[in-house]
Every structure is written in C-alpha cells, then in structure tokens.
C-alpha cells in the first residue's frame, strides 16, 4: 500500500459552555504519495479542524479527538506521545497557513527561521543549514537568495513570505504537506505564482498535499481529488474532473452555482438560502436538509450515508441506492 495518510471515522468534538460542538463528525479519506486532496467547505464545515486533528494540534483544554483512526506512513498518530509528535511535525508532516505574516517570527531573519528547522530535525551544523537555506529559497523561486536569508519577514512582500513559508515547510522533505488556505491572503497574480509553484514541487518532490480552501477554483487548479465538507460531514468526495463536471450533492451544486461564471452572463446568481446550522444544534436528519431545495420528508428525519454513485461518493437520498447511516 502506497498511502501516506489514512483517516478513518475521525471525530473531533469541542466541549464548551454552550454544549458539545461536533466539528468533525466521522470523516474518512486516504492520500497517496504525490497526490493532492482538496478539502472544501465554508466557515464551520470542519475543514481546518480536520487538518489540526491530523497534526494533533487540537487545543486539548476544549477539544478532543473522540473517535477514529489516523495512520501516517503506516503508524497510528493517535497513539503517539507529544514528544513523538514534535519529532514528526515540521519534519515528516509540515504545514503552511493562510497568513504568512503572523506565522513567521518578526524578530528572526529568514535564514535563522529555516535554519532552526534543519538543525532541530536533521541535526545539521549552522554552516550546513545556511547552505541548505539558500538552496531552499532558490527552489521556491526567491530571487537573490543569498541576500534574502539575512532579511527579516517585514522586508518581504506577502507573496515572498508565503514562498518562505513553503521553503520552511519543505526543508525536511516531508511526506505530507498540509496547506490551510495558502493563497487566500494573496492577490490573484501572486496566487497564480504560488499555485504554479505548488504544482511544480508536488511533481518534483512527490509530496502528498492536503489543500484546505473555500475556493473551488483553487481546488480545480491544483487538486487530484476533492472532498466537500458541510457541518462536520463529508457530503461528496471524488476525482476533481468528476465533481466539477457532474456534481451530485445539492450543496456542491449550490456552491458551484454561486460562483459567478466568468464566461457566462446571468441576471441573478444562484444562492443557497439560509445559514450553516449551529454546531451546537445540528438538524436530526441530513445536515443540509434545512437549506436544501430538494429536501424530502425522509431527509429531515434520517441521516443519509456516504454512498458511491457514478464514480464518486455522495451523501444524499436523491440518489437511488442511498441508504441511511447507522446511528452512532
């Protein structure tokens, strides 16, 4: 088996004064070497909590992984101690975030920050680390890398900072890269540069990428597979071409229709009426039912299971062989 990451039945709940928030409620997926999985959803869908769970970075005072399994390179991450996890994070699994300014330390030079990763995880000497740093900056397309290593984050533009973050994430040649909204804070022309870079690196280094985003366009550009999350559950999962060509779940179809099409002209945009349900008060049946144009009586009562139809998985009673999900 060539799976880098396998997640089965992941449940991450948060225990707060207002009640239990089932932010991630039974999520399954697997990711192979050199593959990119796009995880799409709106605020509160559980996409970021999924990635934090994989990194075991869920704030323990409020949240807990209450069920499921996460296997990384064949080993269970949920059985690892915090010390073992620290050796994995930034090394075999690394992460890039939305806001490159707040994820870089303003008082250290770029060289010091990337160098630290190399010294810590690879046991490099300062001189070796300095050399490798320049090499990494070159890899991610930063001009004048010898000069840039001596600069501080504020001296770089947003696009350059995100390149530095990517260089840092790739420093130890990770098997898995988690990119959480990596281009959301960037301008379109800079976004195009970064997406191009990610595609190129994936091919060159064979890194598996978990790309978390709300932008379906970004997913269509770089991912091989897409998983659409709604209120903590996977509603649709399949190959990029399948899902964009023939989306099945009413939520996915609604999302695609609410993006204005650059090549067409319509008077009013399709909308999904209503709001995402509160995490403390989920509808008893299908979680999308209260906003769904096609909702039937059955949808309000019971939760559909994720079933394979026409080459990809959908969680919806509209499709013939859909069955109900077992309680639990």
């Amino acid at each position, binding site marked *: 088996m060539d799976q880098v990451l396998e997640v089965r039945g992941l449940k991450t709940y948060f225990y707060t004064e207002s009640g239990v928030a089932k932010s991630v409620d039974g999520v399954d997926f697997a990711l192979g070497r050199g593959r990119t999985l796009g995880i799409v959803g*709106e*605020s509160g869908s559980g996409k970021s909590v999924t990635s934090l769970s994989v990194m075991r970075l869920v704030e323990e005072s409020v949240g807990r992984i209450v069920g499921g399994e996460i296997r990384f390179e064949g080993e269970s991450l949920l059985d690892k101690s915090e010390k073992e996890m620290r050796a994995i994070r930034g090394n075999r699994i690394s992460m890039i975030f939305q806001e490159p300014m707040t994820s870089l330390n303003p008082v250290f030079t770029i060289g010091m920050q990337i160098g630290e990763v190399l010294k810590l995880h690879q046991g490099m000497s300062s001189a070796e680390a300095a050399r490798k740093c320049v090499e990494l900056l070159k890899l991610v397309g930063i*001009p004048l890398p010898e000069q840039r290593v001596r600069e501080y984050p504020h001296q770089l*533009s*947003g*696009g*350059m900072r995100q390149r530095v973050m990517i260089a840092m994430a790739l420093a130890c040649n990770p098997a898995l890269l988690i990119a959480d909204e990596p281009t959301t804070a960037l*301008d*379109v*022309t*800079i*976004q*195009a*540069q970064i*997406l*191009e870079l990610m595609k190129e690196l994936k091919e060159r280094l064979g890194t598996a990428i978990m790309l978390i985003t*709300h*932008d*379906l*366009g*970004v*997913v*269509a*550009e770089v991912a091989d597979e897409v998983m659409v999350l709604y209120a903590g559950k996977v509603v649709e999962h399949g190959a*990029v*071409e399948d899902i*964009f*060509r023939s989306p099945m779940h009413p939520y996915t179809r*609604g*999302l*695609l229709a*609410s*993006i*204005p*099409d*650059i*090549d067409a*002209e*319509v*008077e*009013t*945009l*399709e*909308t*999904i*009426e209503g*709001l*995402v349900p509160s995490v403390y008060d989920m509808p008893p049946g299908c979680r999308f039912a209260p906003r769904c144009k096609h909702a039937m009586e059955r949808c309000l009562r019971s939760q559909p299971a994720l079933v394979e139809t026409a080459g990809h998985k959908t969680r919806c009673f509209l499709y013939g062989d859909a069955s109900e999900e077992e309680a639990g």
Partner: protein
Amino acid sequence: MSEHLLEIKGLKVHFPTGDGGWFGRGRQYVKAVDGLDFSIRRGETLGIVGESGCGKSTTGRALLRLVPATEGQVLFEGRNILRASSGDMRGLRREMQIIFQDPYASLDPRMTVGGIIGEAFKAHERLSSREREEQVQELLSFVGLRPEHIRRYPHEFSGGQRQRIGIARALALRPKFVVCDEPVSALDVSIQAQVVNLMKELQQKLELTYLFISHDLRVVKHISDRVGVMYLGAMVEIADKRELYANPQHPYTRALLSAIPQANPSRRRERIILQGDVPSPVNPPSGCRFRTRCPEATERCALETPAFKDLGGGHRVACHYR
C-alpha cells in the same frame, strides 16, 4: 440632466510617509492615487478591480472626501465636492454613502441595530423616535432582515446578516451614489451570492449608482456595467464589462484575467504568470508603471508615460502598443 453623475479629473491622493527628517525636507510620499480621469454614469455600476496597493479603496474614499485629495476635481452633479464647504458637504453626505468590507469591524458592538441605522436619521432628519423606529424597521425588511431585529446587537448576527445591516445603514437616507468597498470579500461563497443579488435588486428599486471596488474579478464581472482596472495608483484600462472581459487590451488586464482560478476544468485557459511583485508606490517606475512586470515592455515604456487613449466605444487603455 447630465448622463454622468460623477466626473473625476486628475485625481491624486498622496500620503506623507516617515517623519521626513529635519524640517521635513526629505519627506517622501506614497502616491496611492496618482492622476485618475474617469466618470460614472447615472444608474450604472462601475467596477474597479486591482490588487492590494493599487489605490482602489483610496479612490473610493477620496470620492466621498473620507481621505483628502492632493489634487484634481471630483464633480458630483457638476459641483466640485473637493471644494465644497463643510456645510455643503453635510448635505452632500446624504447623497453619497459607503458600504465597508468588514461587517465585523464596521458596526459598533455596543449599539443596537436600531441605534446603528437610526443614527443617520438623527444626524440628518428631524424625526420623533417613533418615526425613526418605523423607518428603521422598514429598512430592515427591505434588506431581508426582520423588523424585530431592531433591538439586537451586531454579535447576534452572522457575517452575511451584518453586511445587510451595513447596507441598510448606507441606504437609510436614500443616497444617489454608494461606494461599495469589497462588500462581499469577507463572506462565504454561498452568502456572497445572496448579498450580491440583494445589492442588484436594491439598485434597481432605488435607482442607485454604484462604485463597486473588489479584487474578485468574477464578482465584479457579475455586478458591473463597466469595469476599470487599476495598477499602482493609475487606471490602465476601462471599458464596458463585456468588451473588457472578452477583449482585454492592456497586458496587465490580460494577466489578471488569466490568473482567475477556473472552477470548470474544461474551460482552462492559457495562464500568463507575471514575474515579481508590485513596485513601491513611493517610487513608482518611470514611464509606464507596469513595465517592470510587463512581458511586452520595451525601452520606450521606461521613457514615456503612455496616454489613456480611447480605442473607440469608451474602451480606454494606457499602453503605447495598443
């Protein structure tokens, strides 16, 4: 009545930066907006697109005198508002309003919705508190909220609902012109569509003129009649939206359009990847500002500033080679 509601002539907005050293002799200026000429027709939506730092928000604010202009004229129904006295300006503010990007930061958390929207009436109209409340309730139902929301506080609403409150506040005094500064950028995709549809509907009902500022070329295309593209404080192209998206002329517009992530894999287009970053607006490049990133730049581009010429039908472009 003139076809144009607003005419902008040679508008410049420069901000001083740093302390300028002794006696301000070395003071430098951020040339946020550096010589704009365009007009806005009555009842249309003019979209302005561009990346961070291109001056699109500053332009919107300068039109309302929320930031002081350094040079130029802004004619609103023929009157230069940059020269208007503070008394005249007070009257003009009723007619020109703004909707902000961040519905979390632009509503006072300590005021009720009734207070936030009613404030406009307090400042501009003599109404009893009873009448004010009726007006606010009417506005709330107008933007798709419920009249009983009047006593709630901003934190009780979702992002999309807050933006509706922002819209109600802007429309309270029945303005003629509204600057919409990235009004849907902070919202989820499915909520964006709801708010965009609402704004279009209100425009028709109230005969509003919009200046719609956004970095999202897809949303701008949907809502606008004409679109202007800004780069580093200047407008590089403006045209009817169909013309601009089907037949972009400026190399920057072409790159920008090709960079839009396309959700439909069968409609992938050839992408133009621009090299490098936007230069500093303190010292913009000589000649054409885009030349440092332009794939077609020649020596002439460094020497001469291109004119903003009309290619016919109101399609204007600032490039030597068009």
